[in-house]
């Protein structure tokens, strides 16, 4: 046997052994006693660092807590970059993604999704002085957004001649917009509203264009084929919906008492289907 063939055999064997070891993720999680959940930590109010406690908190963190409690294990959060979410999940560095993840058809080819946990749209924030009132005026202009999400493909689909520059996090992209390095900032509506609110009096210089670039159903991400884990996750979400706890969580992070001031919840946690 040549050295190369032997090396290949070793790789193939260890790969299949790893396959067996990870045959069931749910058992592994129970054995480890902890559920590792990938979060962004930079996207208020889904997951962000509480300035007082320095801990990561948020809507999605609370959902992850509920799932860990249901499984009877400890919750461990792992902060991820937007672009690193799916690779980290595929490589098994996290068990679950709760990272402002859009559920779409393209991604269904590589990972599985839980029930939809939030519905948002993507919108465009511009400076009023730019005089931009509609998407079509963005043609040939520089638009900033976050790297690795659905924002870039969506704005390119809407305005084919747009010049997109992406950054690692929403706040960095927003900083570039504030300095005038782009005329518009594309992001999930919730993130935009949040950043809008953070501006304080300066918010008067900005406006959000009315057109929705897309409807973005957010869901938790799971590795492909982990049906037992998915059943547990979906079961927990269904219970939260039934008991009214899901509604309370929405009110806690998005409701009228928060900066985002959503009056009502326009969705229910009841389906894991999305439209193509």
């Amino acid at each position, binding site marked *: 046997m040549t050295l190369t063939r032997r090396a290949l055999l070793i790789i193939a064997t260890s790969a299949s052994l790893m396959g067996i070891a990870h045959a069931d993720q749910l058992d592994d999680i129970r054995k480890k006693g902890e559920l590792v959940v990938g979060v962004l930590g930079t996207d208020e109010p889904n997951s962000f660092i509480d300035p007082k406690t320095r801990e990561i908190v948020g809507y999605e963190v609370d959902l992850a807590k509920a799932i860990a409690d249901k499984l009877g294990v400890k919750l461990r959060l792992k902060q991820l970059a937007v672009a690193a979410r*799916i690779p980290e999940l*595929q490589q098994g560095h996290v068990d679950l993604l709760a990272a402002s993840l859009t559920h779409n058809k393209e991604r269904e080819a*590589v990972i599985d999704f839980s029930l939809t946990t939030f519905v948002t749209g993507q919108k465009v924030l511009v400076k009023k002085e730019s005089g931009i009132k509609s998407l079509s005026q963005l043609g040939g202009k520089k638009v900033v957004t976050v790297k*690795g999400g659905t924002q870039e493909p969506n704005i390119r689909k809407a305005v084919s001649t747009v010049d997109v*520059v992406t950054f*690692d996090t929403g706040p960095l992209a927003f900083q*570039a917009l504030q300095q005038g390095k782009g005329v518009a900032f594309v992001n999930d509506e919730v993130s935009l509203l949040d950043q809008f609110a953070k501006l304080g009096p300066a918010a008067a210089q900005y406006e959000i264009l009315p057109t929705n670039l897309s409807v973005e159903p957010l869901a938790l991400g799971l590795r492909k084929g982990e049906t037992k884990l998915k059943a547990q996750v979906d079961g927990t979400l269904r219970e939260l919906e039934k008991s009214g706890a899901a509604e309370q969580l929405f009110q806690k992070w998005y409701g009228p008492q928060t900066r985002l001031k959503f009056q009502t919840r326009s969705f229910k946690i009841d389906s894991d289907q999305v439209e193509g």
Partner: protein
Amino acid sequence: MPLLDFSPLLHGQFLDWLLAGVRLSLLLTLFALCLALPLGTLIALARLAPFAPLRAVAWGYVEAVRNVPLLAHMLFWYFAVPELLPDGLKAWLYAGHIEAVAALAALVTYTAAYMAEDVRSGLRSVPQGQWLAARALGLRHRDAMRWIVLPQALRATVPPLISQTLNLWKNTSIATVVGAAELMYQAQRVETASFRGFETFALATATYLGVSLLITAAGVLYQRRYPARPAAR
């Protein structure tokens, strides 16, 4: 482990993106090299100047730049420096490729500090006797430097400078944080669109490695063709 499949990346849109990234990375390297080398040489000369305040300024530059990570330089040149410019110039700059311009500025200041140290070492490797002989012949400091010391020093300096060029080529990847669409940026973009992360970064790595090996080969060839000759003492 999912099977490797490079075919979606090797044609059409994804390949175009990657090639555009390689092009910008190469351009950044080339322009930064052409600007950093003369700047670095000037700083090295300033560090050896007979005038003490000039030496102090050059020393301050080298230490201040070398002791701050390149990532911080990038963010500084992109987010902070242009904001200090007058409004008209700022607007003109922002309308163009501010991302690439800021990345280039960061790479030039950063690389120049390292190159200055290499050139300075080369100058110091020329024995003191050569200086003394030049002065004895009646050459002024400037002329002694230009005709006697620099020609000998440059030969010794080329190999470390080639190694700095190698670093410069790899450092262009940091420009992705300020949105400059170089190879790393385009690789992330292809990964997001194709979900073929392993293959994409394998291609990007192979490109970095390939160009790096070419630069190394240039260094080896130079050293073979022009070995450093120690001057007689």
